[in-house]
């Protein structure tokens, strides 16, 4: 049985081992180029400027958070402070269903509905095409709403009733109690929710690939197609780059960055959750 446990350790070791050596090998070759602005590792001549990947990832994740934070927190506050017992029993499963929609389907919706009907028609800047970053951001936002909602709801629901009663006893309205006392008391849990959601959005491949396309455009306009780190990996992995070539190794290079960032975010997020649990349990 202990050996079974070791398998999980092996997995982690495996991840690290698979990523690091190729990364270092590759980095050795291309260090200076990484700071360029053109990302074309699979073409000849290859260019390795990672800037477009960073901006693409950043813009899409940012849009996702802008969408998901208000709605996710609204759902969490609704569940913890506004919903009756029966309402809660209905709404919680609904959020579970939302969480269960596969990313392919969300990507499909983004590609067939959001981009043509919403973005192409109404996006004010530039000329949006079939692939847009804002569409991918929107769908990724929908993807992470349930994460924010459930983690934040766990946190807010754990705030003791006595604290709410004290605030009510001072003549506060329900909104004031929820926003000025409960959220304040459950803040580390709420922060954890946001961090974990961010990490999830950061690593999302399929939606970005289907909705934002595979062209690593360096741009500040979300109406443009863009490539994220994760969608690059997906894209390059489909193709037939030669094993061991620099192009092949770039997949692992980007993978390392992705893994490192999400690892740090997840450790941070879990730290906030334990801090929260200590306070109220």
């Amino acid at each position: 049985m202990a050996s079974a446990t070791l398998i999980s350790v092996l997995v982690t070791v495996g991840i690290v081992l698979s990523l690091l050596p190729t990364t270092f090998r590759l980095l050795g070759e291309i260090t200076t180029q990484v700071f360029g602005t053109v990302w074309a590792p699979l073409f000849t001549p290859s260019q390795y400027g990672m800037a477009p990947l960073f901006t693409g990832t950043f813009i899409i994740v940012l849009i996702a958070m802008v969408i998901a934070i208000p709605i996710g927190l609204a759902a969490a506050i609704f569940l913890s402070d506004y919903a009756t017992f029966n309402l809660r029993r209905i709404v919680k499963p609904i959020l579970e269903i939302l969480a269960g929609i596969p990313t392919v389907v969300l990507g499909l919706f983004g590609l067939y509905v959001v981009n043509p009907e919403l973005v192409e028609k109404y996006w004010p800047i530039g000329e949006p095409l079939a692939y847009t970053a804002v569409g991918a951001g929107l769908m990724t936002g929908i993807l992470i709403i349930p994460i924010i909602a459930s983690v934040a709801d766990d946190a807010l629901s754990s705030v003791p009733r006595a604290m709410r009663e004290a605030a009510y006893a001072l003549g506060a309205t329900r909104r004031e109690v929820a926003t000025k006392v409960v959220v304040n008391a459950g803040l580390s849990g709420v922060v954890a929710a946001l961090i974990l959601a961010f990490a999830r959005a950061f690593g999302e491949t399929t939606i970005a690939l289907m909705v934002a396309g595979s062209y690593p455009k360096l741009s500040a306009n979300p109406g443009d197609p863009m490539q994220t780190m994760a969608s690059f990996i997906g894209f390059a992995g489909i193709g037939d780059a030669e094993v061991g070539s620099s192009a092949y190794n770039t997949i692992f290079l980007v993978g390392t960055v992705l893994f490192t960032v999400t690892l740090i975010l997840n450790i941070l997020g879990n730290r906030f959750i334990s801090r929260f649990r200590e306070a109220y349990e």
Partner: protein
Amino acid sequence: MSMISNQSQASKVATSEPKKGSNPMSSSTASRTPSEPLKFVDPVFTLKDVAVSYGDFIAVSDVNMQIPSHDITAFIGPSGCGKSTLLRTLNRTNDLIPGAKVHGSLFYHDADLYHPSASAVEVRRRIGMVFQKPNPFPKSIYENIAFGPKVNGRPKKSELDDIVEKSLKSAALWDEVKDRLNESALGLSGGQQQRLCIARSIAVEPEVILMDEPCSALDPIATLRIEELMAEIKKQYTIVIVTHNMQQAARVSSYTAFYVTEVNLTSDRRTGKLVEFNETKKIFSTPDDERTEAYVTGKMG
């Protein structure tokens, strides 16, 4: 000061439980049965046939009483007899519990507390509450006190500073914390936190302060300080306190209401009932009801 309109009756016709050894012919014993509650001039609360239920569990019923203003009234009785539940109906805190229902009529001065047009928010602003376990917000001392006034209005910073200082002084906490107002309230001792909670209530200028076993989580010295505080502030506020500790009730209150749990033998349901409501002096020396006597002399838990 309240005035009691004395309805003493020499005859014991109305007494359902004659006290052991009492002289039925004596005219100097004022007697009251639960059906003839003490009456006050301008009572703060008037309760008639009040009962509280959670679903089909009746926590307390048949409560008829008035609560006088600018004085301390204590609710005492064994645990589970619904005294906390009753206290919480006085400022509609029970509204927050799903399934809780209040029956009968509960008047605050001449206004029906549970009338559809009565605003619970307004009720709670006027009738504050201090809880058993001190529960300061996880904010600074200043922010704890300032919360109430800020929510209820838009005071300027200078006004707010004044309010904070005044409230902390009224709660006898100012001297101890005046140099660390911006520190977290959670760093205070239990007794200090409870005084902070009292100061927090005072800051919104209520008329009544309800206290639900405020000292049960505190050590004897802290308890004493709170009791002194209560005696001080009763000049300005009406206080209703629920307490497990009958010596405390005897020490601080002017009027005491005693409750018991009655078991319905057929349904095995327990319901709290008001047994006797009287001047504290009387409850602890010559109570009318033998159950009261049993409790205050320690014969009954």
